[in-house]
């Protein structure tokens, strides 16, 4: 007889909790809808001639006109070339660097020294990119530290204008990338290395394998899975290019090598107000990246039998 009395209030309170929980969750969904999904649907303006006065609903639909237009646009071709070159350089230089550095740091037997190196090397990751740009622009300035030192030591007779030239830009950008990212990139690999079963090393010791041999035959194969996961996670960003970099280090002199697609999109949108054209360029870039990610995934499956998609 007691039973109904007990369940009745519980049911009501459960309905009440369900309502307040729904409100909490729906607020989140609402914010995703407004700030993530609406922009996603907004990509459709690539097929319009969007004007600020007309807005989305009263702008004219033009189909593939913008796409046809930029295929013959020399600036788009230049920006695409630069984006691809940087993607390639990042893939072969910036991506493997933390792996090598993690292997090196892992061999340090002094715990406190190791900790200090890690603490220092992670730090640049947390600095604003504007500050990173400020530091490097200054050091490689015409009257900056590097020029001063090289002049003092007689390595050069004439100061080099590093940033205002197409000659040094790519090397400098790689240096900036390494400076900012190597330390931070090691975290995940150092964690992966510390997870390798120590019995493997003991067995190798008994078999008389030297340290280098152990790194090659035990450590690297053991962290291969982590490397591939990191590659696939990062490949999207690598092929998209670094907009901060292009905007902050780029100038009129190094433009032929510094200008990337994202920068072009920005200039088209905010500079000349060609919103639809800019979105079309951006869409092609997105599709291009997607293909590269899928290609990379396919390649890693072929090479190592591992993939995450």
């Amino acid at each position, binding site marked *: 007889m007691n039973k109904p009395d007990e369940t009745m209030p519980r049911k009501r309170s459960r309905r009440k909790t369900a309502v307040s929980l729904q409100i909490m969750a729906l607020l989140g969904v609402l914010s995703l809808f407004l700030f*993530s999904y609406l*922009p996603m649907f*907004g990509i459709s303006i690539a097929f319009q001639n969007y004007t600020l006065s007309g807005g989305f609903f009263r702008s004219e639909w033009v189909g593939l006109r913008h796409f046809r237009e930029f295929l013959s646009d020399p600036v788009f071709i230049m920006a695409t070339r630069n984006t691809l070159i940087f993607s390639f350089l990042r893939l072969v230089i910036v991506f493997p660097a933390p792996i090598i550095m993690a292997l090196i740091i892992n061999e340090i037997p002094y715990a406190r020294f190791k900790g200090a190196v890690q603490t220092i090397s992670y730090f*640049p990751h947390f600095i*604003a990119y504007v*500050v990173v740009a400020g530091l490097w622009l*200054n050091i490689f300035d015409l009257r900056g530290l590097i020029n001063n030192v090289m002049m003092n030591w007689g390595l050069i007779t004439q100061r080099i204008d590093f940033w205002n030239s197409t000659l040094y830009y790519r090397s400098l950008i790689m240096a900036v990338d390494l400076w900012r990212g190597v330390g931070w990139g090691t975290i995940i690999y150092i964690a992966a290395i510390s997870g390798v079963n120590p019995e493997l090393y003991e067995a190798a010791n008994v078999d008389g394998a030297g340290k280098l041999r152990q790194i090659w035959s035990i450590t690297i194969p053991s962290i291969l899975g982590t490397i591939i996961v990191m590659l696939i996670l990062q490949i999207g960003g690598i092929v998209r290019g670094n907009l901060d970099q292009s905007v902050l280090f780029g100038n009129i002199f190094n433009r032929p090598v510094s200008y990337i697609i994202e920068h072009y999109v920005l200039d088209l949108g905010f500079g000349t107000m060609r919103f639809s054209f800019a979105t079309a360029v951006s869409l092609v870039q997105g599709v291009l990246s997607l293909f590269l990610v899928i290609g990379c995934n396919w390649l890693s499956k072929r090479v190592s039998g591992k993939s995450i998609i």
Partner: protein
Amino acid sequence: MKIKRTLEERIIIVFSVIMSLFLALVTAYPIYYSFIFAFSHGREAAASQIFFLPVSPTLENFRMVFSDSIIYHSFLMNFLRTGVGVITGVFFTAMVGYALTREELRFRRTYSIIAIITMYFGGGVIPTFLVYRALMITNTFWVFILPGMLNVFHMLLVMAFFRDLPDSLFESAKIDGAGEFKIFRSIALPLSKPILATIALFVGVGHWNDWFTPAFFTSSPRLQTLPVILMRLLSATEAQARINESIAHLGAVHVTNAGLTVESLRHATMIISILPIMFVYPFLRKFFEKGIMIGSIKA
């Protein structure tokens, strides 16, 4: 027991120590250089080429920076948006994450999928700008706060934490007649301080360093934050304009004696941007290795 090291092992240790030392020095020096420059007499530093120690140590550069109304205002604005952004962002992310971990919530899985999709696909800059404009948040303070209030990656971290809290806590609170929002606020939130602190640090650094939003989504001088001003200072003409401002404000004699140059002004501003990060860095350092591990396991 002392382990005898083979020659190969000793070579590897020496090599790794040298390489690590190199990495640490190369990483630290550019920041250190900016530091000593910011504390130096600007013109003397340029003339005598400093490397290890400041020349004629002085705080004048910082005084100049803070006496410049534009830089000073951007500094306050940066603090304001970081403060508001952290409080609202952490609270909102935790709240939605809490709701999504509760079994009573209908459509839980659908909501989670809706959230996770946004981690992989986005609209790109131009559609995003146009949507913000239509929502009338461009060129307002809210463009700093609202779009980033729900961070899906952080939400997944919080959800992992909430799931590990014992169910009995929530049950007993419910029997006492507490509503879900009350349970979230007075039980779930206080119990998850460690993860919330971690997220707060990351959200805070993100807000503090963001230059893109103010540079492209706002135009009002009132809303310019420190990174944008710094970006402008990277151009020589703008930096010179700021120095002229200081001359107008403090007098030419004073500014000349202080030796303020374009470079010293930039360095001082950069150090002002770095210092708060350095201040929270020890806490960040403590948390992020744990955080990144949780994140990678979940992913």
